[in-house]
């Protein structure tokens, strides 16, 4: 058997397995309760007029999502609005500082397909935190320990079981002190995230 024929057989096998799975009835209960999500990722400094230094952050984000405040049918699925509250634990593996520890609250809009298995989401919000600022020792570092943050996060979630979901997303985060200190270059960072969440 040549290799091209083997590839076609594998593709056909996967396709038929997918069809068989799609025909299985999905009976997930609606996700209308609390949800706890643990997310990990890597963020790299991007431009936008912020610090000229290179930064790499490895955020570990624990989020509590409250039950939806609104759910309405839309585009064959359900459009849901809810809030999430996050603990930001972010080692800085490249850059003059070493960590950022903070809290953030965000509003999240989700579109869930009819089966409840797939969710697309967009979240935006902000908060505050502390870091070991080095702006007076390293030009381009942050000017004070207490900083504000705002974030945007979009991506998709896939429900693997009745109570579990996995997610992949793209996360943008801005950190600065809003001029509370005269040294305030700010930090814009962007990167991918992976997460796992438990539904209650």
């Amino acid at each position, binding site marked *: 058997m040549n290799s091209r024929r083997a590839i076609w057989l594998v593709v056909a096998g996967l396709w038929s397995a997918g069809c068989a799975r799609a025909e299985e009835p999905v009976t997930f209960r609606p996700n209308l309760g609390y949800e706890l999500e643990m997310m990990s990722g890597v963020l790299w400094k991007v431009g936008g007029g*912020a*610090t*000229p230094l290179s930064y790499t952050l490895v955020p570990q984000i624990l989020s509590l999502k409250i039950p939806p405040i609104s759910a309405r049918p839309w585009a064959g699925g359900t459009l849901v609005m809810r809030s999430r509250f996050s603990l930001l634990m972010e080692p800085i593996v490249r850059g003059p500082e070493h960590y950022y520890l903070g809290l953030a609250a965000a509003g999240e809009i989700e579109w869930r397909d009819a089966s409840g298995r797939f969710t697309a989401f967009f979240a935006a919000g902000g908060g505050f935190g502390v870091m070991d600022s080095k702006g007076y020792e390293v*030009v*381009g570092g942050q000017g004070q320990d207490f900083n504000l943050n705002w974030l945007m996060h979009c991506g998709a979630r896939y429900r693997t079981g009745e109570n579990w979901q996995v997610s992949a997303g793209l996360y943008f985060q801005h950190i600065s002190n809003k001029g509370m200190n005269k040294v305030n*270059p*700010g930090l814009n960072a962007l990167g991918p995230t992976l997460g796992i969440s438990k539904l209650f």
Partner: protein
Amino acid sequence: MKKPTREDVRQRCSRKRRYLTQGDALEAAMLRGVERQRVAYLCPICGRWHLASAG
């Protein structure tokens, strides 16, 4: 506050390069290798950022 004279404006602002953000100003200083000799400051006249000697 006393209105700055034309010469004040020239000395403190118009003869200097303007940057939109503090980060942009610091980046310009770093590109020229003078980040240790310059500080970025917000100009009260034009509202943009300039670089000045650190000493």
